[in-house]
């Protein structure tokens, strides 16, 4: 049975304390915050406002700058489409990096159809954006720069403070998608100079179905979900009260414990990194070696395909993720839905082997023993796949000839 969860980047287990914080808001305080004329609604509204203050505090923002959403994807859509629509009716220009999440990149598609132009700045082989490239991409009609704080697939942390400074100097809005990083590494919206920041609760031990967008005071944004007057007009719909309460609790815990988690996860990450580097040949780490998410170890192995690695890992009780072609969008309708990871392509991994990428993302609950187990199991799995692989066979033959 699968026991070792090394896939925190896809979602994290809820912290039991967060669940306890949410619990009363299911059966006892079930009111609708909009019905705050009566006690039930008033109690719900108070809880939402308290959570808002906690989320704001995680970011060093004002509570009036937090808009609750259903998650990071919605927040990214609201940020990108909302800012573009607020900036004007016709045309305009947006700068994004080459490693943004689909929820930023695909939100650009309808905008492109309405005449918005997009410049994609590249990343280096460690997955880093050069702030100079962002500066060079900004035009007179640029409305928005969107560069994530950290990439989930390869872990690289971007120089968002520098990018924010450039955007501000040029009078352009700056959005950063902090889905993978918020609650794990410091994120101060004033230091970063961000106007819009995307957060997702389930990525820092909070509940699924709860996200937020930081919207700096005074920033204009066109709402994307219209209806009643919730969230100061930025986002209509009855609030997911337990979800929001859970996000607040998770933000409070993260703020207090982040330093401790970071310390532990960096140590575990290093142990994992060193362990597999020593035991698996033909393994190439991806992402920046030091400016990366704590506990995040990503790599690809030559002659081994990602999904097969994941399946064997799962059979061995180890749950992980792959950015590979085969494992993404497995629920799609046809082969077209299987796209090779754009992130690996962006950092220049040769496309004939990038199907072998693996992301181990550790969380606060993982242990040294689990790391050691993974280090001991992985080489055997790789070997098994190599033995089945025609390309590895060819390589062995070539080596034998070369050696002969």
């Amino acid at each position, binding site marked *: 049975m699968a026991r070792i969860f090394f896939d925190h980047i896809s979602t994290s287990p809820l912290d039991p304390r967060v669940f306890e914080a949410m619990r009363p808001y299911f059966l006892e305080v079930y009111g609708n915050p909009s019905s705050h004329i009566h006690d039930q609604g008033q109690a719900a509204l108070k809880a939402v406002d308290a959570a808002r203050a906690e989320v704001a505090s995680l970011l060093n923002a004002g509570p009036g700058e937090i808009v609750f959403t259903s998650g990071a994807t919605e927040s990214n859509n609201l940020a990108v489409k909302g800012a573009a629509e607020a900036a004007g009716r016709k045309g305009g220009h947006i700068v994004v990096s080459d490693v943004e999440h689909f929820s930023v990149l695909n939100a650009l598609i309808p905008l492109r159809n309405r005449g918005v132009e997009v410049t994609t700045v590249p990343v280096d082989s460690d997955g880093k954006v050069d702030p100079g490239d962002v500066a060079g991409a900004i035009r007179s009609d640029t409305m928005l720069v969107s560069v994530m704080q950290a990439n989930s697939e390869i872990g690289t942390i971007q120089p968002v403070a520098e990018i924010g400074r450039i955007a501000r100097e040029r009078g352009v809005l700056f959005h950063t998608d902090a889905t993978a990083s918020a609650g794990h590494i410091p994120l101060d919206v004033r230091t970063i100079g961000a106007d819009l920041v995307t957060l997702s609760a389930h990525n820092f031990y909070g509940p699924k179905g709860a996200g937020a967008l930081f919207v700096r005071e005074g920033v204009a944004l066109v709402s994307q979900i219209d209806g009643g007057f919730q969230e100061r007009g930025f986002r209509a719909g009855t609030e997911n009260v337990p979800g929001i309460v859970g996000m607040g609790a998770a933000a409070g815990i993260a703020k207090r414990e982040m330093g401790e988690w970071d310390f532990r996860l960096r140590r575990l990450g290093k142990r994992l990194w060193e362990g597999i580097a020593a035991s698996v040949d033909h393994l190439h780490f991806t992402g920046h070696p030091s400016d990366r998410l704590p506990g995040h170890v990503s790599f690809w192995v030559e002659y081994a*395909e990602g*999904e097969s690695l994941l399946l064997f890992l799962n059979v061995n009780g180890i749950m992980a993720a792959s950015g590979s072609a085969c494992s993404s*969008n497995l629920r799609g309708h*046809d*082969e077209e839905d299987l796209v090779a990871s754009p992130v690996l392509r962006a950092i220049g991994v040769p496309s*004939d082997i990038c199907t072998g990428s693996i992301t181990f993302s550790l969380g606060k609950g993982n242990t040294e023993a689990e790391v050691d187990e993974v280090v001991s199991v992985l080489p055997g799995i790789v070997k098994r796949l190599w033995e089945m692989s025609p*390309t590895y066979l060819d390589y062995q033959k070539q080596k034998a000839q070369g050696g002969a």
Partner: protein
Amino acid sequence: MAGGPYTAKVMDHFMNPRNVGEIENADGVGEVGNPACGDMMRLYLKVEEGKIVDAKFRTFGCGAAIASSSMLTEMIKGKTLEEARAITNQQVAEALDGLPPVKIHCSVMAEQAVKAALDDYVKKNPG
């Protein structure tokens, strides 16, 4: 063990693939796919008196690719060349109790591999 998106049959052939390996001096070899597309299969055939007496494969690819390869080799062993050529990807997929829609191409690869190996056999044994 849930087996992820796959049937128990697929997982069985993935975890315990039949006929992995190489046939020295094979009578026909077919190679299809491309690692850049995520999968590649090399199929070796031993043919005697118009029948496939042995089949082995090596595959680089996902769970469905490996299982399809394994299942295919089981299906063609003992078959005449004509019978083997008639095998369709649907038959491979059905023998595996089905594949997810996005993975149908893996069974197609298996079908193409037999055809390529048979073509190679014909080329090597003209007339």
